């Protein structure tokens, strides 16, 4: 990853992270604000409900008070106390309840038994414990069983009639039902539900025991102002929490998978006189508005973030370009220099660290170029000197016999003719041989200077190595008196195709084999090996000779360097030249007394 990309990524992440942090902060704050608003509205509604509840309680109490003050009722109470006969008043409660617009009304006699019941006329003569609540004068909640087996929740008040003891009591009440919920003041988006606790199983006992274990949630018992609640089961955990603890419970209720269809619900337990939970009032405030606002804010945040990121990218591009361009120029210049373009320079702008670096780079390149020029000149002089030394050495050997032969001929002119002829013949032979030797030396230099360009063709390394082995194995065997040299082979079986000039490669390998044979004057083993490795063809020529010192290894491929008495020093230079022309490498592995191995790696054709 380039410096520019790194800078770009760094800047983008920084800006995006900053924008995301801001958006998250805004969203959290918005949620807190809406939650606080919900809580305020819910608290407001709860207080309104409590006022409405008190108002209804007062209405019920007033209605029962008015009834108890009626002369007709007082007369009835007197008669009941005097005669103890409840029969004439069997339907009295229904009439009174209709007059007082009460949903429930029971007349309880001095003995505590029901004399007349508007809601359940057949329940006369059964005890009604609620009459004991007359002393409190406070309206209360009560669950009232009905003849059809169902029950209803009501707000009740009890009053004694006449004041004499034992007294007749009126227990009047109004039903907490759909109409009650419909009359409650609700804010837009708010729903109010009532969960009526189930009563005891059908029994004649009018008051269920307070210690009844909490019944399982029954979705059918949850109703709103419009009747049954479709998503009643969703409210179960909330309502159960209120039923179980007897305290207000609050939770977010998801009506569907969509967040918009969720409500912030509060469950308020409604209790009887004994503190048992008779019903649960659920106030549900729709969160659609808040969720939509959150979604709008989130969309805006995403838009701002996207724009910020785009701006960050643009800014990063500009900044990164501004910061990284001198570095990139330096990198490119370094590569140019590495490639040999010593004239490369980078512009020097400004006074910052990068411009200092550019100036240092330019100065360094200039110095390196000067040093290189001087080194090349030194090397060139050294090479010429070496060439001259080698030429002098090579030419000096034949010249000395030529000089002796010419001097001998000169001296031989004083000899008799027949002796002179003898000397002349021998001298001319020697001259001819040394001149041929000179030609050979000159030819070798000429050949090295005229190395042909490789003519590539698809060959198999195995075949080339086989040809070389066959040639020199036969030659070694045909040289009588020569040291015994054996040939070994470690050539892999698989094909090892490569694109190479077979003649040049054969020549290079031949040079290596000849070197190996020369390195073993006392005899030994030349091993030829080849294998394919990592897409390259590796060929090895190993001998069991005396080996080379590390210094010899370093100079081995230098032209005209030889460790032999009569070598030109061009053999390995030619090998290196051929290998280089085939885009390959050559290396030597050797140690004194341990033999020498030449390793050639050439590109494979596979």
């Amino acid at each position: 990853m380039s410096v520019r990309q790194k800078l770009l990524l760094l800047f983008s992440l920084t800006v995006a992270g900053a924008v995301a942090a801001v958006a998250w902060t805004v969203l959290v704050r918005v949620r807190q604000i809406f939650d606080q608003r919900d809580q305020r509205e819910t608290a407001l509604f709860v207080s309104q409900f409590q006022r409405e509840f008190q108002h209804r309680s007062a209405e019920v109490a007033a209605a029962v008070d008015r009834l108890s003050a009626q002369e007709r009722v007082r007369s009835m109470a007197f008669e009941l106390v005097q005669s103890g006969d409840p029969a004439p008043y069997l339907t009295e409660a229904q009439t009174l309840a209709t007059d007082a617009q009460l949903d429930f009304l029971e007349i309880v006699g001095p003995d505590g038994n029901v004399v007349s019941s508007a809601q359940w006329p057949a329940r006369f003569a059964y005890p009604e414990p609620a009459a004991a609540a007359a002393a409190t004068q406070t309206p209360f909640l009560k669950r009232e069983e009905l003849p059809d087996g169902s029950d209803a929740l009501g707000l009740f008040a009890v009053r004694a009639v006449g004041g004499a003891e034992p007294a007749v009591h009126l227990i009047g009440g109004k039903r907490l039902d759909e109409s009650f919920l419909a009359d409650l003041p609700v804010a837009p988006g708010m729903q109010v539900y009532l969960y009526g606790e189930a009563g005891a199983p059908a029994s004649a006992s009018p008051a269920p025991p307070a210690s009844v274990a909490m019944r399982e949630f029954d979705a059918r018992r949850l109703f709103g102002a419009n009747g049954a609640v479709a998503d009643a089961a969703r409210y179960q955990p909330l309502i159960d929490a209120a039923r179980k603890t007897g305290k207000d419970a609050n939770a977010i209720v998801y009506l569907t998978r969509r967040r918009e269809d969720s409500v912030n619900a509060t469950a308020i337990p409604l209790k009887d006189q004994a503190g048992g939970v008779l019903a649960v009032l659920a106030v549900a405030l729709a969160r659609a508005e808040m969720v939509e606002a959150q979604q709008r804010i989130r969309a805006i945040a995403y838009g701002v973030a996207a724009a910020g990121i785009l701006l960050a990218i643009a800014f990063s591009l500009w900044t990164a370009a501004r910061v990284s361009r001198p570095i990139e120029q330096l990198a490119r210049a370094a590569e140019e220099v590495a490639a040999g373009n010593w004239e490369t320079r980078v512009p020097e702008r400004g006074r910052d660290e990068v411009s200092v670096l550019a100036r240092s780079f330019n100065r360094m390149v200039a110095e390196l170029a000067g040093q290189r020029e001087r080194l090349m000149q030194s090397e060139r002089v050294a090479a010429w000197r070496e060439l001259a030394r080698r030429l002098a050495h090579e030419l000096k050997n034949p010249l000395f016999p030529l000089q002796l032969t010419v001097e001998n001929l000169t001296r031989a002119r004083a000899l008799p003719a027949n002796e002179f002829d003898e000397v002349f013949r021998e001298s001319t032979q020697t001259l001819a041989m040394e001149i041929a030797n000179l030609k050979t030396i000159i030819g070798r230099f000429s050949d090295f200077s005229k190395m042909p360009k490789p003519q590539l063709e698809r060959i198999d390394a195995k075949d080339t190595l086989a040809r070389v082995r066959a040639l020199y194995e036969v030659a070694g065997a045909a040289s009588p008196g020569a040291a015994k040299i054996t040939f070994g082979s470690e050539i892999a079986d698989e094909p090892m195709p490569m694109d190479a000039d077979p003649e040049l490669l054969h020549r290079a390998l031949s040079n290596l084999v000849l070197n190996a044979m020369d390195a073993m004057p006392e005899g030994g083993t030349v091993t030829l090996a080849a294998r394919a490795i990592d897409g390259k063809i590796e060929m090895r020529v190993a001998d069991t000779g005396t080996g080379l010192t590390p210094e010899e290894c370093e100079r081995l491929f230098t032209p005209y360097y030889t460790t032999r008495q009569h070598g030109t020093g061009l053999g390995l230079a030619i090998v290196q030249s051929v290998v280089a022309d085939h885009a390959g490498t050559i290396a030597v592995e050797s140690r004194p007394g341990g033999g020498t191995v030449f390793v050639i790696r050439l590109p494979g054709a596979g």
Partner: protein
Amino acid sequence: MLWRCATSFLLVSAALLAWGRTRPHYGGTLRVEIAEDPWQRPGGIARRLVLDGLTRADASGATQPALAVDWNSENQNHRWQFKLRPGVHFQDGSPLTPIAVVASLNTACPSNCPWSAIHAVGGSVIFTGDEPMPNLPGLLAGDEYLIALTITSEGKPPEGVIGTGPFQVSGFLNGVLTLAANENCWAGRPFAGTIEIRAHRAVRDQWLDWSVGRTDIVEVPPEQMRQAQQQRLNIVSSPPVTLLAVQIAESGSLESPLLRQSMALGIDRSALSNVIFQKQGEVTASLLPANLTGYSFLFPVERDLAKAQQLRGGITPPLLTLAAPGDATMQLAAQRIALNLREGGFNVQVTGDATQHVDLTLREFRLEGNQPQAALESIAGDAGLNPPPPGQGDMALFQSESEILGRYTLIPLLYLPRAFAVSGRVRDLRLNPDGSPDLADASLLDTARGDSSRGDAP
């Protein structure tokens, strides 16, 4: 002398005037309002006005001749011969013949009759039965065996109900059935010239009409008799003639007799009688009232909730339904019974729809006469129970009733009277043994009011 003559004249005149004021007057329109259908069986108020039976029950319940003047049995009550009253004509003028009687009885009782065959022989009608029929004369006095014309002299079915009774149907308009006096009635012309019966009238509306003088006779339910008496209304009431009982289905979840017995013991009869029926009922655990048998006290009426729960043995049947056809009082009584049964461990739901399958039914049974055996057979027949073979004597009757009650499919609760409020212009209104008003013997003081046949008065 003159003074004596004058005094004597004045005394005779006063006596004549007094006699003239007290003797029944002919003519006038008697207006009656009822809640039921006037033609319903049994107890339809118009049936006994238009139709007669071969026999009738008098005020004491004894069987008296009606269209049959004499009867006798043979072959140990397997064969009965009823000799028809001669000279009796139907209201369309056709004579009452044994063939017409046989046709009428066959129409009234196409199957499951007390007799197995009926024949017209001469001036008599012969009943034969596979079983002895000791109570056949009493049964024939019942409401369902009244004789009606089935085929006219032209061989066609009659267009209305035609009988031999003191009144004949003269019209039906706007829910008011009008009956006109049958001048040629074999029992003599009735006093009232016309009777207007407004049927299917709620009791509350009847009382409203009665209070404004739009009717002469209205029904007074037992639970309102006390109130009516407090209002000093002229009330005519009968002895207990209506049996209120719970009939329990013998199948389903109440197949066990112990469960049914448990239910019988769980019902508080006294609360029904004292409160709902305002002490006008007579609690009973027997099918026949005490005034007919005298042994009714042998069947305990007290509620025994502990024993009821013991008999239930911890078994709680599924939700049971109690049907209570009838008015609000019947519904209330049913609610009370359901409440009692809940205490006994039965979950009972009251329904007003008796057409569907129900487990319990609150029913009313009407006594049509004072013959205990006939009444028992009638109740058993109405309840769909097979009555035990009739026997002779009170012991046999007691055993028969005990056998029926021992099944615990019919639980007697109360015997209730029937009562009517009568306006001051109605005289001599008595009630039949079945509690229905005997309008044929009633007369009107003010025959001019609402009289459409004023000229008929003698």
